[in-house]
């Protein structure tokens, strides 16, 4: 009954996903040497790009992991990226722009578009959460509706026109390794939140048994809204980083990111049945997606085959999850 037992058991679970990550990386390393005569891993530039290109998906995955732990799902994160990218970008334009969206609102301090982007995500998340908690709509449908609506709003906002000429202070958010740092910071914050706070305990409890959670005095509806708002904020932040990095806002941003985010969570061991999942697993799952994308590009696979393999890996991850659960039940 020692603290160590708990730690050991938790780490063991991540160890398996970590092994998968290492195995995939080593396969690419081996292919790299034999086909291209070049190292896959020992290239710091490649490693940075590898994480950089999944750091937005990683941000979304941190949110969607929490949603899935409550027994829900979030299909709207990719569209929220687009909507908040548009809104943030429209408030980050320089006064030199003759066709600014809001000519009166140019040259604002960079914090304004950042907060506006995050608030956009929070609002979308609040609507998701309220629909799920206070009506009988299943999370799949509520967030599917938000996915379509938010994408539509992103397009309607400027009638499909991209928003460009953003201020330097704003675009700096997307420069260099900063998106990776934002991803890592969010991962650490929510790793701690899930493991050590009341918020985390309640999140797991609701996913494991909502009725029992209610009987234990947890306000299930309010907590669900909170979880979806947090997921929305992370998607909003994803939109800010995306638009800063591209130095523009485009309605097509974040397309199908929601599926990559769900895939990262599931590969990382989050159970779609709810009650089970950890941010550390999701981070590894995100990196697995990044390694696969980089790896396929590195060995010269074309993009179509990348998608085929990615699809197979996602399904295998879920099959493994089901298998693990069955084994546990019969044990």
């Amino acid at each position, binding site marked *: 009954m020692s603290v160590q037992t708990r730690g050991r058991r938790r780490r063991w679970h991540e160890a398996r996903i970590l092994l998968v990550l290492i195995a995939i990386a080593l396969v690419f390393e081996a292919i790299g040497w034999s086909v291209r005569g070049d190292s896959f891993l020992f290239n710091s530039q490649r490693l940075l790009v590898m994480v950089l290109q999944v750091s937005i998906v990683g941000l979304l995955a941190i949110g969607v992991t929490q949603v899935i732990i409550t027994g829900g799902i979030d299909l709207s994160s990719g569209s929220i990226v687009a909507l908040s990218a548009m809104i943030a970008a429209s408030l980050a334009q320089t006064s030199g722009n003759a066709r600014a969206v809001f000519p009166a609102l140019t040259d604002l301090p960079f914090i304004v578009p950042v907060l506006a982007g995050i608030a956009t995500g929070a609002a979308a998340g609040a609507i998701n959460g309220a629909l799920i908690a206070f009506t009988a709509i299943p999370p799949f449908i509520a967030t599917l509706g938000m996915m379509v609506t938010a994408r539509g709003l992103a397009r309607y906002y400027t009638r499909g026109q991209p928003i460009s000429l953003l201020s330097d202070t704003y675009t700096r958010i997307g420069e260099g390794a900063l998106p990776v740092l934002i991803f890592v910071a969010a991962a650490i914050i929510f790793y701690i939140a899930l493991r*050590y706070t009341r918020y985390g305990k*309640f999140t797991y409890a609701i996913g494991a048994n909502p009725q*029992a959670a209610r009987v234990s005095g947890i306000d299930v509806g309010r907590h669900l809204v909170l979880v979806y708002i947090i997921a929305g904020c992370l998607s909003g932040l994803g939109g800010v980083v995306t638009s800063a990095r591209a130095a523009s806002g485009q309605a097509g941003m974040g397309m199908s990111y929601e599926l990559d985010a769900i895939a990262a969570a599931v590969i990382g061991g989050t159970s779609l049945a709810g009650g089970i999942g950890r941010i550390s697993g999701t981070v590894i799952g995100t990196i697995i997606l990044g390694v696969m994308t980089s790896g396929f590009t590195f060995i010269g696979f074309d993009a179509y085959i990348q998608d085929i393999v990615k699809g197979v890996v996602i399904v295998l991850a879920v099959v493994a999850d089901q298998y693990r659960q069955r084994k546990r039940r019969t044990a």
Partner: protein
Amino acid sequence: MKYLLEADLIRKEFPGVLALDGVSLRVRPGSVHAVMGENGAGKSTLMKIIAGSYQPDAGSICVRGQACSLPSPLAALNRGIAMIHQELNLMPPMTVAENIWIRREPLTRMGFVDHRALRQQTLDLFEQLRIEIDPDDEVRALTIAERQMVEIARAVSYHSDILIMDEPTSTLTEREVEHLFGIIAGLAAAGKAIVYITHRIPEVFRIADDVSVLRDGRLVGTAAVAELDSDRLIGMMVGRALDQLFPKEHVPLGDVVLSVRNLSLAHAFADVSFDVRAGEILGIAGLIGSGRTNVAETLFGLTPATSGQIAINGVVVRVDSPRTAMRHGMAFLTEDRKDTGLFLWLDVLDNMEMAALKSRFVRRGFVREAEARAECSAMAGTLRIKTPDLEERIENLSGGNQQKALVGRWLLTRPRILLLDEPTRGIDVGAKAEIHRLISQLAGAGAAVIMISSELPEILGMSDRVVVMQAGCVTGILDRADASQVSIMRLAAN
């Protein structure tokens, strides 16, 4: 042929429980045979054996004088035995006719389902049974009573002449019950045998020809209903020894802690009033569906009352959520461990600390893990919860230990009022005795305890007073001295 169905000396053992110990049942053609007994007496197990769902460990079954084995429900169906389940086995999105004739649909020459013939043969069947339901209605649009009719029709469509009904009236209105009884009488008149499980004594006298009573896996006796009266039937049902129980210690009672006046919840119970004092255990007895669980759920704020008053320590309070109930010092151990109690995939520690987390183990949002662990560990020791460590998933614990962990969850909230719904259901005798001792100690320490139980010996052994409920009303409050199995049964079933 004297008996349509003969089950002889049936024995069935589950791990740790002897569910049936040499039980025999003989059912005459053209008769309604009632089967009665307390919860856990073995009625459902016996019916599942007759319907082919369970295999007996010993004993034989004869249908129409022929010995036969029934390895599956389908085999039983082919022998003419059909069971109308308590949880109805219909496919809600399909039509009535499709449900009845599934797997046996009339086909056209092209091999498509012949919907006209399907409708017609359903109408013929319904006419014979005097059922008025449109065969093309979807089952999900039907009432529970109508669904039951569809199940009966389906059973008859298999030319079954032995129909087993497991408490068919428990969810029906009075008029629906009348209709059902009409159909049952018609089936009996047509020479079929109906085995009818019920808790309700008046129903036995209303429709049954014979009655068999089970108790603790044994047959107490079979008798013709015409030769019985209700007192003798109650006498057969009760009379279990009060041994192997831990009776409540005598403690002086304190002030009234919880006072309930005219508490009502629409469609569940009405005008419930009682007081509970510090140190007192108030038992609530009543059959399933009598509203006893609803009262506890309303007291705890899960289903706020539609009218009436709850006062705690003399102050009238409004309890509209479990959180307010907990703030007033209440704790609620629910009836169904798996459904509303356990977080099966979480560990013992998480399960135990969850209710007290907010009020005791959190500072600025962070869980004080060390303190929670120490408290849970101490509680697990006091309750003698057997687990390798607190990180074990709770689903790997035995039922008794799971229940103790849930008791621990509530004790950690330091409640002054304990609502216990079936606190010892489905756990072994040893764990039962320990939980009884614990409840008694809690009362001794000044808690007010309300204990709901289907087991009369438990009610009688533990309670200072007993509230008896029937059909959503309190039919009597008995002092310990006046409470007996017979006096409670009279108030609960008559």
